[in-house]
């Protein structure tokens, strides 16, 4: 039996295989399907969540390794001031197309803005390069990050 802190709520889970990747635990056991499976080997970023404020690829993070840490997913990122601003910017600019990659994009963007309040395009490109979008929404992702940065500094 393990206890996990997900989006600020601590819950206990029985019969959990500690080797199960956090991604599948979140989706199948905790019923939080906002975090997506895209590749299973940390190449696409669709599975990005926060672990103690750090962006991690949950598809290669065993759930056993997050016991005692704070897990934050896209379902809860709006509770954070920066996360909320990111979501608002994403909505303001209609960033999404198919939307499947966007949970991961938002999670990565939130971490970026926590550490860099006013990122340049080059900084955005480097921080977000791990998040793949096959629909090509990259221009709007860049614009939305700038938009969120502006709204946070206002």
């Amino acid at each position: 039996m393990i206890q996990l802190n997900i989006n600020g709520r601590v819950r206990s889970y029985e019969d959990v295989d500690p080797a199960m990747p956090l991604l599948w635990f979140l989706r199948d056991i905790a019923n939080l399907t906002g975090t997506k499976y895209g590749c299973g080997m940390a190449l696409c970023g669709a599975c990005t969540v926060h672990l103690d404020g750090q962006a991690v690829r949950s598809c290669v993070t065993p759930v056993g390794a997050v016991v005692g840490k704070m897990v934050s997913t896209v379902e809860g990122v709006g509770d954070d001031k920066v996360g909320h601003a990111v979501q608002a910017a994403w909505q303001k600019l209609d960033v999404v197309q198919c939307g499947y990659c966007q949970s991961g994009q938002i999670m990565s963007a939130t971490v970026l803005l926590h550490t860099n309040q006013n990122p340049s395009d080059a900084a955005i490109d480097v921080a977000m390069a791990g998040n793949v979008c096959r629909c090509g929404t990259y221009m709007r992702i860049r614009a939305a990050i700038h938009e969120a940065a502006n709204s946070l500094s206002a």
Partner: protein
Amino acid sequence: MSDSARDIFIVNESRRRFLEGMGGLALAVYAGVAPAEQNRATLSSGDKKPAEAVNFAPNAFVRIASDNTVTVVSKHLEMGQGTYTGLATLLAEELDADWEQVHVEGAPADVTRYKNSLLGIQATGGSTAMANSFEQMRSAGAAARAMLVAAAAQEWKVSRDSITVERGWLYAKGHKASFGQLAAKAAQQSVPQRVALKDPKDFKLIGKPALHRKDYADKTNGTAVFTQDYKLPDMLVAVAAHPKRFGAVPMKVNAEKARAVPNVVEVVQFSGDRTRFSGIAVLARNTWAARSGRDALEIDWDESQAFKLGSAEILAQYKDMASKAGLVARNEGDTDTAFAAHNVRLIEAEYELPYLAHAPMEPMNCLVQLREGGCEIWNGEQFQTGDQSAIAAMLKVPADRVALHQLYAGGSFGRRANPSSDYLLEAVSIAKAAWDKGVRVPIKLMWTREEDTRGGYYRPAFYHKAKLALDGDGKLVAWQHHVVAQSIIKGTSFESFAIKNGIDGLSVEGLADMAYEVPNLRVELTTPDNIRVPVLSWRSVGHSSNAFVSEVLVDEAAAAARRDPYQYRRDMLRQAPRLKAVLDLAATKAGWERPLKSGAAGEKRGRGIAVHEAFNTCVAQLAEVTVKSDGSFKVDRVVCAVDCGLAINPDVIVAQMQGGIGFGLAAALHGAITLKDGVVEQSNFHEYIPLRINEMPVVDVHIVPSAEKPTGVGETAVPVIAPAVVNALYNATGKRIRKLPIADQLSS
């Protein structure tokens, strides 16, 4: 005022049980479903409304509830291209609804009501959604409006003419009521046989860039539900083991270790045919267990009938075929004579394009619930009619006993619209095998990224052999072109759609119907029969190959004639005003007449242009590149001009141009599926390289104002970027690329 009653189905749906036989189960999900309730979403969204809730449903496309929500039923799949938004815009415009009260859900599979009139079946593709729905959805909205007005007139005892409708409210002197308040009474009105549609100058929603997409919020907070997310009680997940080679079948299976994985419930074998895999599936209570179980299977495969050629052999065969005569798809004038004329300059060129995977972010999956005499399927459903009949045939039930629920698709780019219904039939056959073993719960088949990348159904590899002749003035006077490519439709039940006289029009589209005025034009096609790599339409279909080759060839001709490539094209498009207009717009906005800003020391800069018409939409793109001394390069900016008729959602059009460029650029720079001894060499994103944000250029989109009927934008930007970039690289370096992907060809 147009009279468009002809083509729509105006049946008062409130007078028949809308979900006949479905028992109140969910259709699809729209914004607002809280994640914690998702497990029960399917059972609860039907009974979210109290028993006495009234639905005013004048036709198959709209439902207005007494709680004032307007639900638009979309017969087209939302896979990112903005159909839900576009169709809702059309209907809401004529309905005079408030944009905020409008929600969208996917339509059930029912070709009598939801046929795509341009394709003849219920399906999303060919960039036809807006074109075939333009009048239909508007009329549907207008009909509902008329009935609401009639209801208000009755209620208030005023004349219909004295009633105005604005943003979900009806007004008359001293009266006002919302749609919801009038819904019950509207349901009692008779459905008008003719409706009047608005004059475009009165549009409030159509053409407005400030309209938010309908899915703009749920896709930012984890509540949007894809097939990957949909759950039913007691559902099992199935992960399948596929052979490495197409056509291999399991010979010996040891499932002992698989069954020993905790939470694995069953292991079943499924048999395919030449259109889909045979293999073994592990069913488990959660995805990780299913995948671990699948990885623990020990399978010996019988490859005696498997396809064993590799890309090298296929290319060699295509080269050989291209040197012989093919079937003639187009023949104007006499190319042989033109080539033999004196003082012509000849250009001979061969082009190679690889197989391409769709690689949507959501790998293939679908959820099946078999029942006695039928089944229900939840899927990012793109090909209802075809899938429905294929599944019905497999289960030996009537087609209307196969219910298909359309969810969002996490990208598709054509993969989910398969005339062979491959992944659906795989899921159903797994469910059938499980059913026979007494496992009768819902089963969700989930392909991993590896199965998806290696699952076949690629954009075919193309080989082109071309010969062009320029006269003494550098004018293009003859063009002979031989295309070699597999047919994506031959052997399917939809063959007759595209194959005429043995020629698959989809393989030569963009070439055989090219808009350039070339007096002598001969396009031939050879379709190999022996290449058993499954192929399928990939976003922009034949244009993805043929626009590349034709636009680079025209550029080669311009270079040989020492002419400006923009003017050179212009001169050949005199009979194609729309193409000329987008070409001019792109060139003007990009500042073609001004010299390109030079780069830093050691860098070369260049720009290239391309223009193409696909699916009735004209797109021109101008790409600017910077090439470094080591041959690496970046696409800095793309200026894109598009004529898609009336711009219904301008912001969606901009997004589709940007996105189509991103998608096409990924393929141009990196995309290749290669085979060795019949085995696909790529498995995941480290081998099938996607475009990343640091490679995305700035894209400026300019829409040609138009009042013509809308045409599509979902695919039409894709085929133009590759030639624009290759032409720009030529402009920068003098090196001509005739093989895709570009990869590191400039470095050698």
